[in-house]
């Protein structure tokens, strides 16, 4: 008689798939970090927790504000296809005297920003700081930054067969035979 211990096999396969997913996440993270334009953006990307809910294994990558800035760019050069841009613009984090995407000075007072609550002196409320920076009047950090699209590009590269290849190796090398129970009939 041949039996298959499916419970033990599924448990073992689950462990193998989780390990493969962790390896893929590491690859994705390294790829994305390499594609970031700024060291702050690369340092702001990290690995989150691994979840297993209702049989679905998920490995998370977390990006902080520097990573978001690097990914989508800043000021007039920002990527407006960012799906959360509308939400950001309508939130208290957006500069209230910034009618367009250009980097502009904030009004005086304590305000919420992507980096937490900050106090502003209000030296140039609503003034186009990009123009002043390009003229060399103020620091270059106010120049707009193009999007790196590092995370999206890394995901696209990985989705082009890499995910499937790793998962198929797990399935091909899984010791299915170890879970067969063969007993001779008397």
């Amino acid at each position, binding site marked *: 008689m041949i039996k298959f211990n499916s419970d033990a096999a599924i448990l073992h396969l689950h462990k193998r798939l989780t390990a493969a997913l962790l*390896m893929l996440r590491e*690859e994705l993270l*390294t*790829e994305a970090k*390499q594609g970031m*334009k700024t060291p702050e953006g690369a340092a702001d990307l990290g690995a989150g927790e691994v979840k297993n809910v209702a049989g679905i294994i998920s490995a998370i990558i977390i990006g902080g504000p520097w990573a978001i800035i690097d990914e989508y760019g800043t000021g007039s*050069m920002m990527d407006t296809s960012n799906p959360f841009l509308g939400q950001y613009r309508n939130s208290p984090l957006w500069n209230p005297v910034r009618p367009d995407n250009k980097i502009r000075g904030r009004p005086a007072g304590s305000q919420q920003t992507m980096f937490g609550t900050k106090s502003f002196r209000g030296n140039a409320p609503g003034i186009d700081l990009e123009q002043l920076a390009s003229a060399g009047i103020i620091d270059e950090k106010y120049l707009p930054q*193009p*999007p*790196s*699209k590092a995370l999206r*590009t890394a995901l*696209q*590269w990985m989705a*082009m*067969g*890499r995910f499937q290849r790793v998962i198929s*190796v797990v399935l091909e*090398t899984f010791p299915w035979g170890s879970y067969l129970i063969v007993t001779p009939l008397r």
Partner: protein
Amino acid sequence: MIDPEATLNAVQRLMIEDPEIINHMNLTNATIIEKAKSIIKRSQYNDIANSNSRLCIYIRPSRRVRNQICTEGVLQIDCHVPVSRDMYAYKIIKRVNKLLHNQVVGGRKIYYDGELGDLPTALNYFCVGIRFNFHATVINP
């Protein structure tokens, strides 16, 4: 053996010596130094200007394979051209693939690993990238 320098040098030399790539990049009358400045061994493109084209040859993070003494190296080549010459990027990438896929370059057998089309680049530029993979042992004698 892990030797990214040799791989990059061999690929760069191959690109610089190819008349079709040089022609598509408008470098026919350029000196060898000018060619080496346009076909570089880094991913840098933010300083590209004056309607120059650029071919960036660089190594991406390697991938683990089942055998622990081997690694899968990833070589990426991005072609940046002015938007007005966007079709040349595809022509150059096509030629790059012909020169590298299934060929031994710098002592390594290189295989096509995929392309993504439009990649991030400088303002008013267009970029297409292609990837190749190769295997190497991790032990350097």
